[in-house]
């Protein structure tokens, strides 16, 4: 069985304020397998159900129907809650809502203290986590004085101090400036490549999703695409119809490809685009 194993997952929100209560089914039977060490991006328009899905992975939401297991642990069983939360950490969009302490290192230590980890071990893990995200020199700073990207990295440090197998990030870069965005993306990729942490990244930035190993597209509470980024983004028209987008370089390559030029329609990175365009242009007036 895969590390994160989702079968026939259904989930609804119930609005009790209405009489009779109104049921809104957000996830309508999702099957998804994520292996240990994978980097998976989840895309979908606002209201598609992707955040609800993310919260099902660490048992904030539990299935109404179907099943979700993490490392073989069923999320619906109460006694699995703590072991699951130790394995899967979550990072949310707004860094200001996730920071609880007045000193960076105390914030990173917060969860460990709650878990009753030994003080010496806390010290070791906090230092290591802060070094991993490149915030060690800020360990004595006040979090509210950091930039958005720095705060988000502190939030990530707080998660990795728990030494989870997997981190689920729900639009972690949505409120950041370009530099903050690239700092957070670098940190995520490093955790995945060097530390083997499984990453589930929910994002609206197509350039970020293009850096994942795999892209899952959710629409109307159903999984409608699940493949490598090249295969997903090369379907430019499909993505547009879903209210999504493709990286700018993909848009250009796809356009030239459809005009009959000799260029791959599966270009998703800047490097690939530069190489391909150079090949096309080098014997033109420009070259």
């Amino acid at each position, binding site marked *: 069985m895969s590390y994160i194993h989702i079968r026939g997952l259904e989930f609804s929100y119930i609005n009790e304020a209405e009489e009779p209560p109104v049921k809104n089914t957000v996830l309508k039977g999702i099957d998804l397998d994520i292996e240990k060490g994978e980097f998976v991006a989840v895309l979908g*328009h606002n209201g598609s159900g992707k955040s609800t899905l993310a919260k099902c992975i660490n048992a904030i939401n539990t299935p109404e129907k179907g099943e979700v297991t993490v490392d073989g642990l069923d999320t619906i069983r109460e006694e699995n809650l703590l072991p699951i939360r130790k394995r899967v950490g979550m990072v949310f969009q707004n860094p200001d809502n996730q920071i609880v302490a007045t000193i960076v290192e105390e914030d990173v230590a917060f969860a460990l203290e709650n878990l009753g980890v030994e003080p010496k071990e806390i010290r070791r893990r906090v230092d290591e986590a802060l070094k991993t995200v490149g915030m060690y020199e800020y360990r004595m700073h006040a979090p509210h004085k950091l930039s958005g990207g720095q705060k988000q990295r502190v939030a990530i440090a707080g998660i990795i101090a728990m030494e989870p197998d997997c981190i689920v990030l729900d639009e972690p870069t949505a409120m950041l400036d370009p530099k*903050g965005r690239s700092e957070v993306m670098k940190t995520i990729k490093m955790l995945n490549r060097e530390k083997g942490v499984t990453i589930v990244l929910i994002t*609206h930035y197509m350039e970020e999703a293009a850096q994942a190993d795999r892209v899952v597209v959710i629409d109307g509470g159903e999984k409608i695409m699940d493949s490598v980024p090249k295969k997903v983004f090369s379907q430019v028209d499909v993505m547009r119809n879903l209210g999504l987008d493709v990286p700018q370089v993909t848009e*250009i390559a796809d356009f030239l490809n459809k005009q009959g030029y000799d260029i791959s329609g599966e270009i998703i990175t*800047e490097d690939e685009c530069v190489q391909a365009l150079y090949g096309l242009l080098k*014997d033109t007036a*420009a070259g």
Partner: protein
Amino acid sequence: MAIIKTENLTYIYGDGTPFRKVAVDDVNLEIDEGEMVGIIGHTGSGKSTLIQHFNGLLKPTSGSVLIDGERLWDDKSKLRPVRFKVGLVFQYPEYQLFEETCYKDIGFGPKNMGLDNAEVDRRIKETAKMVGITADMLDKSPFELSGGQKRRVAIAGVMAMEPKVLILDEPASGLDPKGRDQILGLIKEYHREKKNTVLLVSHSMEDIAKNVSKILVMNKAKLYCYDDTRTVFHRAAQLEEMGLAVPQITRVFNRLKAMGLDIGDDVYTTKYAKELLLKLLAEKKFNRGIETD
């Protein structure tokens, strides 16, 4: 004439305390009426502090702000009309909705301006239509709408005051690509139709490139530059040093140029990139044709 002008504008948070921070440092600036301006800068660069001066929410520590030729803060009683002249839409404005119906929420600003009921009604209907809020949605509670719809109601509430200057702080943040294009599209449409001045704060260089004609760059509390889009994105290296960026497509073309291709360095939208590539490649076909003859 400049609709917004600042003279040596400086703002200091917590002056006289150990937390003293210069947020806006000696900014001199003139924005002409009818411009659509993008404002960019790293987190903490002073963008938000700067725009809050434009409708008198903050009082300069030193220097001054002139709106439509009038110096703010000379006469405090004149601030109220300035707030109607310069409309400010904060980040995540949907959290500020409070009325029972969308109709009342959009009408709140115009009503406070002392307009008569018929005029308030006209403005609500006109702006609702402009932002794509249908007549039946107007009677609903704003809390029954989706996130994107709520945001459009909130923006309509400011547009309905028909401010000469509309300032929006990250109006598209948190929205999916389609929602982003819709919001920015309607702002562009508003600008085209009303010919009012619009200032747009954004962290998305792609959105800025697509929508504005001039860019104001803030860096470490100072005004780094205020120039047309082409000129600003021409300074890719400097922008990156400041923690900003240029659109992905601009980076691609800059790299091609560095590799020795003569392709100009003014590509910052995919639309223009496509036109340019087609033109260059068509010339190639033409040249090949001659060779084979």
